[in-house]
């Protein structure tokens, strides 16, 4: 079945470092979404990418959708302790849009 894979599953960085995490789909996606879940919290929608090669920025976070619309990346610049949490990517299941397939998440910890 359709799968969304995230790498790495865990990332530990020093405060101030940059890093990139990746999301790969087994199928072409009409769009890809990113969510963030703080420890003990619920997933919160961050952004949606729709166009091939699209790049969007939210402050220190840069999101990119691959040219083939099968992968995406999240780059965080100058990581802060407030970035701690688990980041999920998700894509629509099959041809419809009412269901999402979530990756297993990338858990970020930051050493202050």
């Amino acid at each position, binding site marked *: 079945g359709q799968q969304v894979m995230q790498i790495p599953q865990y990332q530990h960085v020093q405060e101030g470092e940059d890093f990139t995490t990746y999301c790969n789909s087994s199928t072409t996606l009409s*769009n890809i*979404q990113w*969510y963030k879940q703080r420890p003990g*919290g*619920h*997933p*919160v*929608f961050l952004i*949606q990418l729709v166009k091939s090669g699209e790049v969007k920025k939210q402050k220190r976070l840069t999101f990119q959708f691959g040219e083939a619309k099968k992968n995406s990346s999240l780059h965080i610049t100058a990581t802060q302790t407030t970035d701690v949490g688990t980041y*999920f990517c*998700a894509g*629509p299941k099959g041809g419809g*849009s*009412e*269901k*999402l397939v*979530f*990756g*297993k*998440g990338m858990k970020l910890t930051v050493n202050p």
Partner: protein
Amino acid sequence: DAGITQSPRHKVTETGTPVTLRCHQTENHRYMYWYRQDPGHGLRLIHYSYGVKDTDKGEVSDGYSVSRSKTEDFLLTLESATSSQTSVYFCAVRGEVQAQHFGDGTRLSIL
């Protein structure tokens, strides 16, 4: 805040007992979802609803049933709870640009 309330927030129960979790929304969203979240598995869809009395299964629906008799309420029932159903359960609604907005979750422990 997507106006989603989940109840109860925490529950401990025994194997074999029925359990019902409630999701209430105030913004008239058509689509509602129930997920479970377990370490190493991310978010897995249990059931979803695309309107009153219209529901469909997700990838881990065995042992669960749902009902939606009103737009604002989506109920998840474990007919006979098992220890494998110990999890954190999230309700979500679909908002604009197909984004999903989640409730605060219910932590369910089955002993």
